[in-house]
């Protein structure tokens, strides 16, 4: 049994608190609901003490101390709110403001900005210091991410998320002193860097220095164009998060309201990416069985997560054969929209404007990939908007999603299974595959469809499964830094797995780079990832069908259009190939 950690007793602002040894003063304060201001702190990711907003006074200790990194000690008496301390922080804030592009009203983070929060908290009435501004560099060459150094406050959350969580290190601090800025090696655009477009930097940026590349303007034009048949598909995780943008609690499942809102804003059809996910399972599981049977490359790794594909192409080009060749659910559905659906409705695919509502910034780069283009040269998906972008659009159109009545997706690409729904959370793709693999192999249905071993927030989860009487080890990996460990094992020949699910972001798509922002203090109080995941598991439980192969739509599509999973036509339409990507090349 693990030894219980020693408890430390201290007093903060006159209130006693008891915490485990090793806890920082900041976290001890949070335990008793004292919100010591921070701009840079991110637990275990950015504990660097940069921003100076969390300074506290400790009795008997000289000078102010950085509470985010200072460990609580027995008997400590801490003050977070003395007059001098507040005055000092106000001045630090003034200094930050003096080097910050204060065009708040035109900033995408207006009213959702940690710096604004603190200005309010410290009653900033005017700007005290004027002077030279840091060099303003706008890097908007990437399809996914826009960086604006004029808004950056150099908290370095982005740098350390990229490095520690994703193992990508596309950005780092360069130059020093007042000339310091977050930049890319060789002063290149982030597009040419190791960046995979995941957008974890965006969701952790306390201000508006990092945003997704917006294609909303194009979308609005398409919606206004009466000649265009504008359809939208929605990723599994969006329904578990978009409600937050409309004041609903974290973890609200708003599938029906979301469909209603999208219909209201003018989409001709609202389809469900989850159906694409069901088809992905048919293809991927069949591919896995075929690899098992025919001695193909193992372990096979899932290929739904866009950032992951880019990561593999940039960091592990020698492992590309391990990736399933199945396209992502978004691309599969996009392809079906412009082929199966277009034919069925007798619409020229050129007249279809196909939009995907995604939790993800990386998907914006996926849709322009050459190898994903259809035979007629069209993109399967024309535009990707993130959850946040869509929420803004809806608000602009006076649509309050929270107030709408539920509506259903449009057929023939509407109904999906519970297996498709859980694609949005880590472990979901693997669980969905496991629900179908035996059936696809020999028609056996498994009894229990819930695989608890691969649910939850651990970065690497393992399980053993029986396929045709043989035991196979499988793994579920999230966060690219952890994924690297799994890949290194494959590289070294020590991997014990047959099948691996990879998701780029911690928690999977529900915590993707395009999802609603939750400020760090709030995120320390509620487990955002598991609440959103729970919503998807509820959707799964309530679904009429919980196995992809049971989906009547899926059956129909194969029967009428595709033929066999992994067959000739599905291979042509639903599978792709991967290529090594060079980085830092002009």
């Amino acid at each position, binding site marked *: 049994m693990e030894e219980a950690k020693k408890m430390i007793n201290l007093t903060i602002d006159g209130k006693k608190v008891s915490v485990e040894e090793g806890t920082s003063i900041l976290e001890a304060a949070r335990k008793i609901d004292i919100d010591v201001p921070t701009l840079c702190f991110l637990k275990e990711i950015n504990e660097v003490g940069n921003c100076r907003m969390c300074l506290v006074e400790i009795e008997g200790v000289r000078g102010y101390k950085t509470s985010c990194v200072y460990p609580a000690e027995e008997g400590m008496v801490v003050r977070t709110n003395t007059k001098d301390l507040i005055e000092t922080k106000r001045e*630090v804030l003034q200094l930050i403001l003096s080097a910050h592009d204060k065009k708040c009203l035109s900033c995408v983070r207006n009213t959702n900005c940690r710096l604004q929060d603190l200005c309010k908290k410290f009653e900033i009435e005017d700007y005290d210091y004027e002077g030279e501004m840091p060099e303003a560099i706008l890097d908007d060459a990437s399809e996914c991410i826009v960086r604006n150094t004029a808004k950056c406050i150099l908290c370095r959350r982005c740098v350390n998320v990229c490095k520690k969580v994703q193992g990508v290190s596309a950005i780092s601090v360069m130059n*020093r002193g007042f000339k*310091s800025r977050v930049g890319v090696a060789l002063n290149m655009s982030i597009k040419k860097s190791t960046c995979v477009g995941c957008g974890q930097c965006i969701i952790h940026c306390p201000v508006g220095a990092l945003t997704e590349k917006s294609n909303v303007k194009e979308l609005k034009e398409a919606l206004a164009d009466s000649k265009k048949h504008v359809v939208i598909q929605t990723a599994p995780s969006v329904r578990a998060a978009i409600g937050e943008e409309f004041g609903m609690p974290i973890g609200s499942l708003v599938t029906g309201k979301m469909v209603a809102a999208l219909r209201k804003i003018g989409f001709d059809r609202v389809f469900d990416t989850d159906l694409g996910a069901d088809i992905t399972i048919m293809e991927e599981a069949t591919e896995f069985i075929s690899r098992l049977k025919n001695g193909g490359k193992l372990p096979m790794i899932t290929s739904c997560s866009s950032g992951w594909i880019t990561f593999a192409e940039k960091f592990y080009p020698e492992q590309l054969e391990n990736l399933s060749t199945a396209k992502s659910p978004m691309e599969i559905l996009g392809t079906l929209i412009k082929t199966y659906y277009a034919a069925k409705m007798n619409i020229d695919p050129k007249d279809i404007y196909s939009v995907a509502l995604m939790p993800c910034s990386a998907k914006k780069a996926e849709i322009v990939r050459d190898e994903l283009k259809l035979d007629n040269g069209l993109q399967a998906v024309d535009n990707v908007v993130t959850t946040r972008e869509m929420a803004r659009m809806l608000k602009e159109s006076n649509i309050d999603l929270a107030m709408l009545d539920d509506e259903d997706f449009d057929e023939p690409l509407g109904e999906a299974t519970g297996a498709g729904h859980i694609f949005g959370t880590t472990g979901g793709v693997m669980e969905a595959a496991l629900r179908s693999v035996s059936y696809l192999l020999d028609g056996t249905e498994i009894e229990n469809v819930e695989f608890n071993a691969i649910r939850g927030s651990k970065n690497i989860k393992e399980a053993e499964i029986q396929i045709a009487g043989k035991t196979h080890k499988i793994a579920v990996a999230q966060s690219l830094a952890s994924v690297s460990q799994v890949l290194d094992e494959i590289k070294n020949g020590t991997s014990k797995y047959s099948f691996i699910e990879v998701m780029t972001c911690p928690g999977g798509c529900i915590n993707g780079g395009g999802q609603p922002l939750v400020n760090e203090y709030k995120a320390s109080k509620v487990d955002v990832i598991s609440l959103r995941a729970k919503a998807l598991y509820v959707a799964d439980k309530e679904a009429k069908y919980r196995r992809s192969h049971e989906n009547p739509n899926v059956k129909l599509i194969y029967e009428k259009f595709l033929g066999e999973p992994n067959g000739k036509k599905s291979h042509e339409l639903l599978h792709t190939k991967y290529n090594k990507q060079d980085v830092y090349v002009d």
Partner: protein
Amino acid sequence: MQKTSKELRDIRSNTKLKFKSSRIMICSGTGCTSSKSDKILEELKKKGKELGSDVIIEKTGCFGFCAKGPIIVIEPEQTFYEMVKVEDSEDIIKAVISGTKVERLMPSENDKFIQKWHELNFYNKQKRVALKNCGYINPEDIDEYIAVDGYLALEKVLTGLTKNEVINTVLESGLRGRGGAGFPTGKKWQFTAASKSDVKYVCCNADEGDPGAFMDRSILEGDPHSVLEAMAIAGYAIGSNQGYIYVRAEYPIAVERLKIAIKQAKKYGLLGKNILGTDFDFDIELRLGAGAFVCGEETALMNSIEGKRGEPRPRPPFPAVKGLFAKPTLLNNVETYANVCQIILNGSEWFSSIGTNTSKGTKVFALGGNINNVGLVEVPMGTTLREIVYDIGGGIPGGKKFKAAQTGGPSGGCIPNQHLDTPIDYESLTQIGSMMGSGGLIVMDETKCMVNIAKFFLEFTVDESCGKCPSCRIGTKRMLEILTRITEGKGKVEDIDRLEKLANVIKNASLCGLGQTAPNPVLSTLKYFRDEYVDHIENKNCAAGECKALTKVIINPEKCKECGICQKNCPTNAIMGEVRKGPFEIDQTKCIKCKVCVAKCPFKAIS
């Protein structure tokens, strides 16, 4: 070949014999080398050969009297030759052969030649402990170091003292960190020794960065083994087998000497496995810094050694608990180490008998600025600034008045006339708004504008701030902007309050020592020279005449003899008038205040 204690003793006594014979020691520190002492050494050797002399001709470390360089001392007579030129080589050799002296190269005081170098006024009040071997031994010859009881302290420690005894000796000596902050060295050793870990490190901070400071450089150039030996002793005391010296790449001579010294010490088995036949292993590696001032801060230094961006880490954890590569690490400055062997050999009582109550031993200062005897001096703690400036430094050139002394570099402050009698120790300097710092001591005369001086140091800090925390990154920049404004005649009445407010925020909110002390030059000049700030702001006047925007060069028509010399010399054609046709006048819109005309006017009509 690994040497035994006996073999070291033999080397010691043999080399001591060499010291009795005639030796020409020429300074090969950076200062004298830049005045061609390397060429002189070559020439001396050449002439020695030509003239058939067997006199030993060697390079040595810094004598300290840099204003008089290149310097040569003839041993064992200790004859001092100053400002030697390559052409003097032949006469020097001939004099050695004939047992005479080259009088034209000898210094004189009160019309009398000074026969031995220690008799110079410059050295009178000095006490050389850390610099003991500089100027006496060849730093590239380990045998010479051994001959002056080198590696005897290490032998004493390894064969006769427990770890605790070593730490206690250092503790009882009262030695405090010479890098600036003055933390008790023994305590640091104690803390690091108490940390439990399989691996620990001993680091030497040789990232000397204060403008005008060269104490550590001179020690490394003149006596590198004293640092290596002390690090090995520290390694034994705290339980470490690996040392790192972090030295600036801009110190090529020091780096080279360190490389040679490490190689020689390894060859003799004084570094490496089973030192002196004991079970103690210790090795030292060099790491070159790229010259960022902040890398002198201990945690930034460790980041840099680890190959990371050189910027400070928050403390705790302190290096003694979690330092280099996350292992307990002892970090001391070069000069601190240079004292350690002397303490071990002579005892803690000997060391603590030097200095004041709270500050023991000596301190090396790099004396610079408006002072006659620019150079490196080592004085017992408690010596007054007046003694350093006037008795050792020889006062201010040109009969000008003393205005202030700046200690502690960009972290320190300016000390005015009224505090000249302050005894130098850690506490007294802090009390008067400055700090000991690593030992830069810049003297300023009455022609220096204190606002401009504050601006100079702020410029340095702004350049050298790592950029990690906003108070330092943006705060120092904003302070500099205000100071620049003031020196350009655009100062506002509220600027002084703003400067003080900013200074306090930067002091209280910054992450590391660099930021926390960055406002000191401004605070201390505001404290002692507030009038000058007010004069700049309210009267738009710079009394010292340094701030060009605030000075006016004017020709006094009554004194002007209409000769036109000023006009001929003016680089911007700012002087109007014709010879013998009335007094000349300066067009203020064209004048760049270079004051060439002031210097050239034979009638002192321009000021």
